[in-house]
């Protein structure tokens, strides 16, 4: 099966600061792939380099849906079927829930916008109840749902999520994760960046573990879930190389 997203030998960073080194990663259609690792490992940088905002690719290739997207204009990437829910969500704070969702389908016509609204409310009934509130007024969990709904409005082939669990209460995190799994069941591929390793490994198909900008572990999620080295990467310890 041809990968939906294929990254080879990627170096990326900000200005003069190189963060990612020699990253090789792929997402096959229909997969839920996780990228794990401690803070500062470069997980967010990876997604930003793919979406082409903030972080810049300095070497290597990124292919999506069989085309090289390394030089595509950032605002065109969404049209290719790649949606990104960034760290901090970046919602349109003073626009309503409805408008946020509709704008997710920007440029696709009124019919698409209406369909997006319908789908979102079906998937997130809580959002329907708050449809006229501004994004600013929503709770943390609702904002996360809105961010996902907005990203889904363009009916993407691949959804990338950057630490959706940040700042959310455990119960809400569980809800979000259930939604992510349901998306995968429905055919959307997912690239999930998370700090919360156990929860993620329990649901993902495969995972990569980043440390200091490099991939140090990779494989089926079920195997990594049992691997002590994962814990060592996060907490430092005797199973890793000592400093």
């Amino acid at each position, binding site marked *: 099966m041809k990968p939906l997203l294929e990254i080879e030998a990627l170096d990326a960073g900000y200005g003069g600061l190189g963060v990612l080194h020699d990253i090789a990663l792929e997402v096959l259609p229909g997969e839920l792939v996780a990228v794990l690792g401690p803070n500062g490992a470069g997980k967010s940088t990876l997604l930003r380099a793919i979406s082409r905002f903030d972080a810049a690719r300095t070497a290597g290739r990124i292919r999506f849906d069989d085309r090289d997207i390394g030089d595509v204009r950032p*605002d065109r990437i969404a049209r290719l079927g790649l949606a990104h829910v960034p760290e901090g969500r970046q919602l349109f704070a003073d*626009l309503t829930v409805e408008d946020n969702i509709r704008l997710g389908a*920007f440029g696709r016509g009124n019919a698409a916008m209406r369909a997006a609204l319908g789908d979102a409310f079906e998937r997130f009934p809580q959002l329907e109840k708050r449809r006229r509130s501004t994004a600013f007024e929503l709770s943390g969990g609702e904002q996360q749902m809105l961010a996902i709904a907005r990203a889904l409005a363009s009916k993407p082939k691949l959804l990338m999520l950057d630490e959706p669990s940040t700042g959310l209460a455990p119960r809400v995190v569980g809800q979000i994760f259930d939604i992510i799994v349901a998306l995968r069941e429905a055919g959307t591929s997912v690239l999930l960046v998370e700090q919360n390793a156990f929860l993620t490994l329990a649901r993902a198909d495969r995972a990569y573990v980043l440390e200091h900008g490099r991939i140090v572990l990779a494989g089926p999620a079920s195997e990594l879930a049992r691997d002590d080295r994962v814990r060592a990467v996060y907490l430092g310890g005797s199973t890793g190389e000592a400093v």
Partner: protein
Amino acid sequence: MLQLVVAGLTVGSGYALVALGIHIILRSTRIINFAQGEFVILGGLLAYSVVTYLHANVWLGLLIATVGGFLIGLAYERFVLRVAARGGELTVTIVTIGTVYVLLYGHALVWGSLPQPLPYFSGGASDVAWHAFGFEISAQQVWVLGLLAVALGALALFFEGTAYGKAIRAAASSPVGAQLVGIDVDRARAISVAIAIALAAFGGTIVGPITLVGGAAGIAISIKGFVGAIVGGLDSPVGCAVGGLLVGVVEKLLEGRFGYGVSDPVIYGLLIATLLVRPQGIFGARRATRD
């Protein structure tokens, strides 16, 4: 006294449109355009040229001035503001002030330093006055207030009711989020500025028959438009419009009571007082003053 209020609302409409233009540009580019008032003057002068040299109807002058303002705004954003923004906030402030100078004296080079008349919208070189409820109101004043309402309505419709208008607001609210859903943020900014300048040109033309166009009044209009924006609330469109009208009314009332000259220090004092006591203005929400 009602007379003065009406006069105040009329001149205040000009200030309100300046204030609103400042708001639109601030929201979409985080830049305060100190030169906004100059574009008001420029707009009026463009209309004057259309009327005088093309021998056209003043309504055509209004249309061309507004469209001209839009195009000038596109150029202004692309070649002045965007370039200056790369140098940082201080550079942008300095550049917009430089623009004030260029336009303030530049228009005198083209049109002369004397203010010029603009035909009244009801046709003809003189105004029609009506008496009602014990005060006098002129046709032009009615036009001004009416057209102000039309402009405000059109803006509201655009920004609240159309997809692209909302997209522009989205780009201002979160450029990253906008980019991620496929909105061209640069174009959104350019169009916002163009709308603001078009608004300024529109404003300059509609009050033109009453206040005359051109002359040295440009900087005073800019400043009073500012005061209106600050007092009403820089980050609230309603606030800016109301603030501008308020400044106009205050100005005319003071002038009526105490004669010319008192209104200026009072208005500037009002600006300082607002900055000290409630910097976000009457309708403003965020305390964005320390950025």
